[in-house]
C-alpha cells in the first residue's frame, strides 16, 4: 500500500515537472505583461491568439517586473516578455540573457531608427535582444477648457511659462497638479521634462560614461554642473505653482483631481489619459513640451520604449514564443494596441496616433526633437526618483546633485562592465533623416 502511494506521488511530481505540456497536447508559454492600463486589451489579444490555432497556448502572467527579475535569477524566466524597456530589463540584454530576434519578421518590420534608442541601455554584441513594441511620447498635459477660459496660449519659452502660471494663480487656478508622494511621478515628469528641455540628454550621458569614476565637481560633465540650472527652475515651479497638498498626493489622486479640473497642467505621460477618461470622458486635453529655456528651439518631448518584446535565452519554448511574437507584430494587432494606448507604433509606415490629445507632440516627434528620460538612463542602483522627490520636497538641490555625482563615480568604480555597454546612439540625426 505504502509503495503504491509513493509511486503515485512520484508520478504526480513527474507530471508537474513536464511543464509546458498541458492535457490537450498544446505547448504552453508564459507571457509576462504587467502594464495595468492595457491588461484588458492584451487579454483580448491572448484570447484571440489561443482561439486562432491549436499548437500553442499563451498564459498571461501579470505579476510585474520584480517577479520577472527573480525568475531570471532562478533560471526559470518567462517565455516571452513584453515589458517597459529600462535599465532594470536591459541588464538582461547586457549579460546576453535574451535570445537573438534578428531573424524574425517582427524584427524586419520595426523601424531602424529606433535601435539607437534601444542601444542607449546597452547591447549584447551581435544580437537583436529586444524589439520595440510601443513608443510613448510624454510632455505637459493641459486642460484646454481652463486655458481657453483664461485666454492663455501654450507657452513656448520659460518666461511665457511663468507668465501663464502667474495668470492662473491670479485667477485662483492651481497651475500644476503635482503628486510628490509617488516618487516615480516626480522623476518621470518634473525631473525628466526639466532636464530634457534644457540640455542634450544623449551628449550628457555619453560624457558621464566617459568620465566614469572621475565624475565630480571638476569633471567635464556632472550632475552638479549640468543639472543645477534645470533643477533650480524645476524647484522654482514646484515651490510656487503646485497644489498645496502635493506632498501627500499620489498618481491615482492626481488623475482624479486633474480630471475634475482642479489644476490647469499635469506632468504625466499619455498612460494617464486612460485613467482620466474614467472620470471625465469629455474633458478636452492637449499636450505641449515643458519650456525650460528662452529659446523655442530647445523644446523637446520625452519618449520612452514603453514596451519592448524579448524572448529569454533560458526559455524552453522559444519557437512557440516566436510564433506568438509574430502574431503580436501583425499590423492590425500592434497598430490597434498603440492606437488604444496612445503610443507611437514602431513599425515601418505605421500611422501616427490619431488622438487629438497627442497631437501637440507629433511635430516634435517628427522633427526628432525627442529625448529619453534622464531618470531612467541612470542604472537603478542610484535612486534618482528618491533624490528627485527629496529635491521637490524642499531638499537642497546642490547637495543631492553632489550625492548623485558621488553615486555615479562609485558605481563606475565597482561595475566597469556597465560602462562597456556605453551608448553611442545618434537618435536626433537618424530621427530627422528618416521621418
Amino acid at each position: 500500500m505504502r509503495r503504491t502511494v509513493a509511486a503515485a506521488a512520484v508520478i504526480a511530481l513527474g507530471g508537474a515537472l513536464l511543464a509546458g505540456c498541458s492535457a490537450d497536447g498544446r505547448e504552453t508559454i508564459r507571457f509576462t505583461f504587467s502594464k495595468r492600463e492595457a491588461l484588458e486589451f492584451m487579454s483580448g489579444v491572448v484570447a484571440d491568439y489561443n482561439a486562432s490555432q491549436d499548437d500553442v497556448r499563451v498564459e498571461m502572467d501579470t505579476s510585474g517586473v520584480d517577479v520577472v527579475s527573480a525568475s531570471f535569477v532562478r533560471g526559470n524566466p518567462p517565455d516571452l516578455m513584453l515589458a517597459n524597456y529600462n535599465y532594470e530589463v536591459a541588464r538582461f540584454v547586457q549579460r546576453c540573457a535574451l535570445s537573438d530576434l534578428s531573424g524574425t519578421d517582427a524584427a524586419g518590420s520595426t523601424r531602424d531608427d529606433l535601435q539607437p534608442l534601444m542601444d542607449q541601455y546597452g547591447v549584447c554584441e551581435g544580437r537583436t535582444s529586444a524589439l520595440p513594441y510601443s513608443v510613448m511620447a510624454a510632455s505637459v498635459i493641459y486642460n484646454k477648457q481652463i486655458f481657453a477660459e483664461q485666454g492663455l496660449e501654450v507657452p513656448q519659452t520659460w518666461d511665457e511659462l511663468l507668465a501663464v502660471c502667474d495668470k492662473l494663480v491670479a485667477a485662483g487656478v492651481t497651475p500644476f497638479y503635482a503628486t510628490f508622494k509617488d516618487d516615480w511621478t516626480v522623476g518621470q515628469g518634473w525631473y525628466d521634462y526639466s532636464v530634457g528641455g534644457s540640455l542634450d540628454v544623449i551628449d550628457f550621458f555619453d560624457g558621464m560614461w566617459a568620465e566614469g569614476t572621475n565624475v565630480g565637481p571638476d569633471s567635464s560633465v556632472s550632475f552638479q554642473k549640468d543639472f543645477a540650472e534645470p533643477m533650480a527652475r524645476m524647484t522654482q515651479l514646484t515651490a510656487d505653482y503646485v497644489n498645496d497638498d502635493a506632498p501627500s498626493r499620489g498618481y491615482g489622486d492626481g488623475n482624479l483631481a486633474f480630471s475634475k479640473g482642479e489644476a490647469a497642467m499635469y506632468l504625466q505621460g499619455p498612460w494617464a489619459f486612460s485613467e482620466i477618461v474614467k472620470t471625465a470622458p469629455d474633458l478636452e486635453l492637449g499636450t505641449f513640451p515643458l519650456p525650460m529655456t528662452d529659446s523655442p528651439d530647445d523644446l523637446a518631448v520625452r519618449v520612452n520604449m514603453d514596451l519592448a518584446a524579448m524572448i529569454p535565452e533560458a526559455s524552453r519554448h522559444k519557437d512557440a514564443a516566436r510564433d506568438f511574437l509574430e502574431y503580436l507584430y501583425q499590423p492590425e494587432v500592434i497598430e490597434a494596441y498603440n492606437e488604444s494606448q496612445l503610443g507611437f507604433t514602431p513599425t515601418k509606415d505605421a500611422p501616427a496616433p490619431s488622438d487629438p490629445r497627442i497631437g501637440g507632440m507629433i511635430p516634435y516627434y517628427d522633427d526628432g526633437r525627442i529625448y529619453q528620460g534622464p531618470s531612467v538612463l541612470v542604472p537603478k542602483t542610484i535612486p534618482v526618483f528618491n533624490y528627485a522627490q527629496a529635491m521637490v520636497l524642499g531638499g537642497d538641490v546642490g547637495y543631492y546633485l553632489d550625492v548623485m555625482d558621488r553615486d555615479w563615480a562609485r558605481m563606475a568604480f565597482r561595475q566597469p562592465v556597465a560602462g562597456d555597454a556605453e551608448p553611442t546612439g545618434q537618435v536626433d540625426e537618424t530621427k530627422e533623416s528618416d521621418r
Partner: protein
Amino acid sequence: MTATSTLVTQGTRPPRSRRRVEPIYYLFLLPSLILFTLAITVPGVIGIFFSFTDSIGIGDWNFIGFTNYIALFSDPAILQSYLFTFGFSIATVIVVNVVAFLLAVGLTSRIRLKTGLRTIFVIPMVISGIIIAYVFNFLFSNSVPAAGTALGIPWLETSLLANPDLAWIAIVIVTAWQAIPGTMLIYIAGLLSVPGDVNEAADLDGASKPQQLFRITVPLVAGYVVINVILGFKGFLNAYDIIVGLTGGGPGTATRSIAMTIIAGFNGGDYAYQMANATVFFVVAILISLLQLSLTRGRNQLS
C-alpha cells in the same frame, strides 16, 4: 538576517548534563538541520561568495576582490540605511515594551471587561503588516491632514509621511501598533507567573502600589523583558513590509532600511554589491546576537 534568530534560540537552551545523549534526539534534529542547511546556510555561503564578484544575479561574472566592500564603506546611502534601521529599531523597542508592559499590567489587574479588552488589544497581531501599512498610509495621507484642516492645527495639515525629518515617527507608530500585542501577551504570561503572596506580603509591609510594581513585579519579570527586547529588536532590524507600504523608503531616501536596500539591489541589477551589504549586515547581526546572548545569561542567573 536569519542568523540572529537561530543563534538566539540556540542560546536559550544551554547544555545541562554531561550524561550520554540518546541518539534519538539527533534524529529529531535531522529534518530541521537538513532544511536549515539547504534553505539558509547554502544560499548564505553562495551569497557571500558572489559578494566578491561583479555578478548581477544572472549571466557571466568576474572576481573583483574587495571592490564591492570598498565601495560599500564609502557609500553614504548604505551608512544612512544602517543608522536609520538601528535608530528606528531602538526607538520602536522602547515604545513597544513600555506600552505593552503597561497594558499587560492593566489587563492582569482586577478590572471589568478583561477578556473583551484583551481580545481587542490582540487584534492588530493577526493582520498582515502590509495591509496595516496601507491602511495607515491612507490615514496619514488623507484623514489626519483633513482633521488638521478641520481643527485648524497647521502642523497636522501636511502628511507626516511627506516630511523627511518626521516620516520615521510614522513608521515607529505603525510598527509599534502591530508589535505591541505579541509583546503584551508575553508580559501577561510573565505577570501571571508572579506569585500573589509576594505582593500580599509587600502590601502588609506597607508598600504602595507603585512601589510594589517597580520593586517587586518588574524584577520578577526581568527575564521576560530581556526576551521581549531581543525578539523585538531582531524583528525590527529586518523591517521591510511596513516601510514599503508606508513610505517606500522616502521621502527621498530618509526611511530606507537595510533590508530594503538589499532587496532593491536584487531588482536593480546590483546583486553582488548588495550581497556584500548583506554580508556586512550578517556580521553585524552576529555581533549583536553574541552581545545579547551574554546579556541573557547574566539576566537568567539574576532572576
